[in-house]
């Protein structure tokens, strides 16, 4: 696929998102809120897909990076709100949140990516929990009471704009020459290493990139819900994102996006069955693993042939 074409789609996507956001005041606030949730879920799932899907490293700590980005950008917003117009500082706050999350990702990734499989899963889960406990004990960001009064800046435009950038950036990265390394690591780490791929470096790159976009998603989430509490970023949140990636099919961007949409909308559809909602969710995970382990949306799309 030529990138010029992809770029055109990206620009078109962002233009569409901005256009749609002009009409948001007319939308029903409930549907608007859910639509923004969908956009944030797409960013989270796509970024985790880079780590868990394309690179084949199993991370269970994505909610931790989301928390870092969310808290940091919300904190920045609360410092400068009022003195600077939102259009200037909001993207910067988001980027700063993403960068800090990436920094933490580097800190976590370098040591823990030496491990693999379920060990890595548990270590990332542990790091995610440590981030939560630290947030719980930091008074500057509200500690257990949570951070409140975050200005509402997240719109449909920002969310889907960033979603488009995330999808584009990750797709471009995976399809680049360097990015073939991710897939090589996924398929066979030892073979990749013997072919001259710096596996540790590749894994850390995937981890840091994923963490960056999770941080952005966290920032969007913070300015959408206007309230953050540490308990919202526990490991069950990470599991939610992992399920999106698995449901969509590891490494299949389109499938993962579809799964993110489906899993965000499903609880809304199931509101009338709220007693059984979570039981159904758990059953879905099990049945999916038993019946369609390659992902719900893996019909006839062949896994791309790797070099």
């Amino acid at each position: 696929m030529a990138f010029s074409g992809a770029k055109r789609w990206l620009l078109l996507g962002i233009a569409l998102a901005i256009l749609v956001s002009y009409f948001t005041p007319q939308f029903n606030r409930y549907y608007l809120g859910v639509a923004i949730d969908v956009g944030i879920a797409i960013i989270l799932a796509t970024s985790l897909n880079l780590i868990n899907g394309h690179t084949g490293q199993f991370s269970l700590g994505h909610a931790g990076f989301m928390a870092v980005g969310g808290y940091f950008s919300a904190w920045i917003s609360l410092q400068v709100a009022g003195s600077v117009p939102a259009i200037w500082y909001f993207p910067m706050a988001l980027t700063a949140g993403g960068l800090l999350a990436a920094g933490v990702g580097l800190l976590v990734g370098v040591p823990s990516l030496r491990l693999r499989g379920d060990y890595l899963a548990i270590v990332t889960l542990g790091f995610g929990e440590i981030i939560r406990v630290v947030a719980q004990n930091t008074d500057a960001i509200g500690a257990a009471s949570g951070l409140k009064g975050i200005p509402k800046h997240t719109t449909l435009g920002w969310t889907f704009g960033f979603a488009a950038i995330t999808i584009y950036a990750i797709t471009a990265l995976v399809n680049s020459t360097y990015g073939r390394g991710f897939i090589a690591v996924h398929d066979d780490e030892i073979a990749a290493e013997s072919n001259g791929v710096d596996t540790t470096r590749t894994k850390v790159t995937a981890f840091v990139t994923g963490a960056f976009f999770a941080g952005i998603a966290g920032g969007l989430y913070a300015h959408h819900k206007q309230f953050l509490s540490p308990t919202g970023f526990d490991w069950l949140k990470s599991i939610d994102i992992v399920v999106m990636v698995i449901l969509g099919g590891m490494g299949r961007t389109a499938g993962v996006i579809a799964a993110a949409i489906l899993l965000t909308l499903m609880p809304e559809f199931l509101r009338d069955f709220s007693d059984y909602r979570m039981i159904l969710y758990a059953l879905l995970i099990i049945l999916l693993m038993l019946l369609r382990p390659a992902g719900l949306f893996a019909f006839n799309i062949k896994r791309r042939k790797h070099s």
Partner: protein
Amino acid sequence: MKPGTFICSSAASLAGLIALGLSGCKSGGGDTIKVGEFASLTGKEATFGTSSHEGTLLAIEELNAAGGVLGKPLELLTEDDQTKAGEPANAVNKLISKDGVVAILGEVASSRSLEAAPICQLNKIPMISPASTNPTVTQEGDYIFRVCFTDTFQGAALANFASTVLKAKKVAVLTDVKSDYSKGLAKSFKQKFSANGGQIGSELDFNGGDKDFKGQLTAIKSDAPDAIFLPGYYNDVALICIQAKQLGMNIPIFGGDGWESESLLTIGKDAMENHYFSTHCSSDQGTPEMTKFVAAYKKRFNGKTPDAMAVLGYDSAMVLADAMKRAGSTAPAKLRDAIAATQDYSGASGTFSLNADRDAVKALVFIQIKDGKFTYNSTVNP
């Protein structure tokens, strides 16, 4: 890679939303008054959410049995927020923007009330929280109310209680690090107790849901305080008191309204003897409203004894209905003014008024646990 992915996804999500809108199109019907409620019915704090929901449900059923309000029956629309951050916003948005409720009841936990409050304020729909005691909740705006007292009032009352009744000079504080309720109550207690000239001994934390507290208790024991202040919920409190007894500690332990539940006695048994807590009312001191509520609740929910959350859930719905009657309308702005004007309301949790900060001003009672029963000790007026 498919470049149209993003467009496809946008289209898909849009289609999903439209479908969502269609599936949820219930007939508007002006013959009921719709009241929204959000509560943690599943997930980690399901215990508290279920209690407050049952109280609210009982109130609505009683009101409807008595012919409804303003000649119309009330319709309670309950949304479960799964004890999950992010969910209350969706639940309340749905109740307001899709179902068109006239008021919102909820939540027990301050952190989830704080997520819903800006939305209610933005939509100008009154929200009454049954049990969120964090002072900042009602500061979100003039449409946000609560029928419980705040941490500030309760913490100060507890501090005075420790100084005067328990005659404690040095008090150890054991808080739940996960809970804003516990942290908030501890903060105001410590301020007032220090101002009273008391000394705060060791300050330690546990995680709500832990089952082993001996590490903390042993440290407290070696510090030898006169009493332990334990703001927390009954499920943890009962276990802490059991383990304190196992360690041979016989100093009084005291806490706030989170203690009130029959489970405290059934789980804690004799380990609870001679400990104290403050709460909204005591069933043995017996206002007629309370007695009536307890009997009705037991009858409705298979003999289950109501806890503090249930009482407050009941009162939140009753205050709303009372305001509707006084306003003679369910228009949100009129309803808001009527709720704000609530004075000397006799609820199941005692008689209270709402002040200018939209917080309930009500007396607080101290309960002592004696011979396996909650026994009235004293009353503190605001």
